[in-house]
């Protein structure tokens, strides 16, 4: 397995075009923005307030905020597109490049999917961690240059709380990426093309992110009051619910007609695990039975 992971790492990390435009653009983009805003506010009196305008003024919130692009609605609606595209190309590219046929024997296929998923997720996670570090350090320096307050002040208690919350947020981010990876793998296996994989993956992701709206529409159309309760089974809701449990210690009781569910933390974890196993398992099943003809 370790050997497979090394192989996947090599072929994914060395695909510079793919990683540059879909992965490293995030930390590089944020670093550039912070530098540009800092310089602009330094040279122009009227732009002096820019750092505080784009930052929350708290390094803890700034750093955690980066993860919102993959874990919570509505940020995840578009924020998940880049990691999803990255993973879809990772899977579907093998069809387009005709490289699956180099893999013998067939019983390697499930391990291939898993190792690819592990590497793709690891790279996205690295990018998000790096981005949040850049944001925290960058805004901190920027605020310091302009003598603006940037809290909270460092203390053991703040640090412990932050690390705890950051780890919990990363865990939700990991689930989000595993679900996205499942969408990407499944889309690639079904369509066998990069474009098809991207489009179907986006479709799955948008359906998940917009599922509450869709369920409300259907509820009103079909006059089934409890239909919105189905939302509790979606990845998006369960990631939000986990975040609520971590931050508030209670379920995310969204105020939506017909939604009465209050799933526990364990229930949300279970549902997310079922989603991941289901999506990845289905992708493996399709791949395992598939004829490689190109």
């Amino acid at each position, binding site marked *: 397995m370790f*050997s497979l992971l*090394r*192989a996947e790492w090599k072929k994914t990390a060395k695909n510079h075009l793919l990683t540059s435009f879909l992965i490293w653009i995030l930390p590089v983009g944020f670093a550039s923005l912070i530098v540009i805003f800092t310089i602009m506010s330094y040279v122009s009196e009227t732009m002096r307030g820019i750092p505080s305008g784009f930052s929350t003024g708290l390094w803890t919130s700034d750093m955690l905020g980066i993860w919102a692009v993959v874990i919570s609605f509505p940020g995840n609606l578009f924020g998940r597109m880049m990691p999803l595209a990255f993973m879809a190309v990772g899977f579907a590219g093998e069809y387009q490049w*005709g490289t699956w046929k180099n893999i013998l024997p067939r019983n*390697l296929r499930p391990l291939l999917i898993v190792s690819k998923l592990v590497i793709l997720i690891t790279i996205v996670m690295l990018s998000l961690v790096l981005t949040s570090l850049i944001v925290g350090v960058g805004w901190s320096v920027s605020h310091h240059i302009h003598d603006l307050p940037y809290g909270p002040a460092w203390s053991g208690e703040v640090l412990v709380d932050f690390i705890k919350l950051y780890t919990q947020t990363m865990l939700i981010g990991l689930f989000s990426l595993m679900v996205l990876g499942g969408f990407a793998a499944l889309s690639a296996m079904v369509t066998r093309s990069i474009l098809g994989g991207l489009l179907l993956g986006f479709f799955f992701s948008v359906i998940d992110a917009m599922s509450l709206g869709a369920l409300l529409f259907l509820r009103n159309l079909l006059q089934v009051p409890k239909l919105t309760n189905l939302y509790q089974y979606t990845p998006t809701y369960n990631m939000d619910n986990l975040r609520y449990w971590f931050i508030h210690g209670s379920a995310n009781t969204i105020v939506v007609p017909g939604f009465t569910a209050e799933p526990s933390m364990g229930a949300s974890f279970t549902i997310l695990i079922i989603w991941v196993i289901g999506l990845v398992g289905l992708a493996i099943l399709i791949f395992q039975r598939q004829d490689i003809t190109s």
Partner: protein
Amino acid sequence: MSEKTAIRLENLSKTFGRGEKAVQAIVNLNLEIQTGQIFGFLGPNGAGKTTTIRLLVDLIRPTKGAAFIYGQDVRRNPGVLRQVGALVEDATFYGYLNGRDNLEVLARTAGNYRPKRIEALLEQVGIASEANRRVSSYSTGMKQRLGIAGALLGDPKLVILDEPTNGLDPGGRQEMRVFIRELAKQAGVTVFLSSHLLHEVEQVCDRVAIINRGEIVREGAVSDLLAEGQAQLRVQASPQESALQVLQETWEVSIDGEWLIVSAQPEEGHLVVEHLVTRDIRVHQVIVRKRTLEEYFIDAMQEGVIAQGIGGNREDTHV
């Protein structure tokens, strides 16, 4: 089943699609290939060569029948494919990686990464100096060479090569033929070589099977197949009309420009010359023309359909 049998195909069939759109690519293929042989798999384009190879390495599943490698059904015991190295259709790689990295990825995926082996193979297939270049900048021939290196990474006992000389120049083809022969002789590797280049197969292979429209139409040792049927003697003599009359007394003769084509066995060459000389006919040249695999192939094809897309060279031997 004996360990001497490297490959056995048993009623192997493959149909693509369903209903009216169904295409029968392979029909009841039965074949046995012994260990240590270089086996040629001949057929026109679209005959089912690549489909057979894909079935053999379990890239696609048969509709009926089974493929066995060293006595193991490849579907039930896919682990047996660890003893197999294959180049299926055109060599395809990650274009953004260089040649060496592509081999590393292949080796690590198969769990047999040995840097020294990679370097040795790059040398062997003649692309060591280009190993740091991105594969996207490789010519088709270089990719084929890299593909062959990829097939040999795990020191396989059986190597399956699908049109390995595609894209190679004549020099490269010759090198590849030598390479394949050495592979079988020195390393004792069994080679299953699919090709539509008859000259290539004739030069390299011990045995051959001809496939057409998904069915094997002929199979046997190359020498046996070529020995089948009548050989020809090509005679240049003057005056040609007198020579024709003299030879027609004993053999079947036709005229091809300055040549008389005599349907006689090579060992009858001296008799032909004797007949002519004793009648004061001057003999300028006598050539024994061996039957080529190309001719054999065309005969085999003509029993079914006309061969398409076939290349090959005739081989003439002066006596």
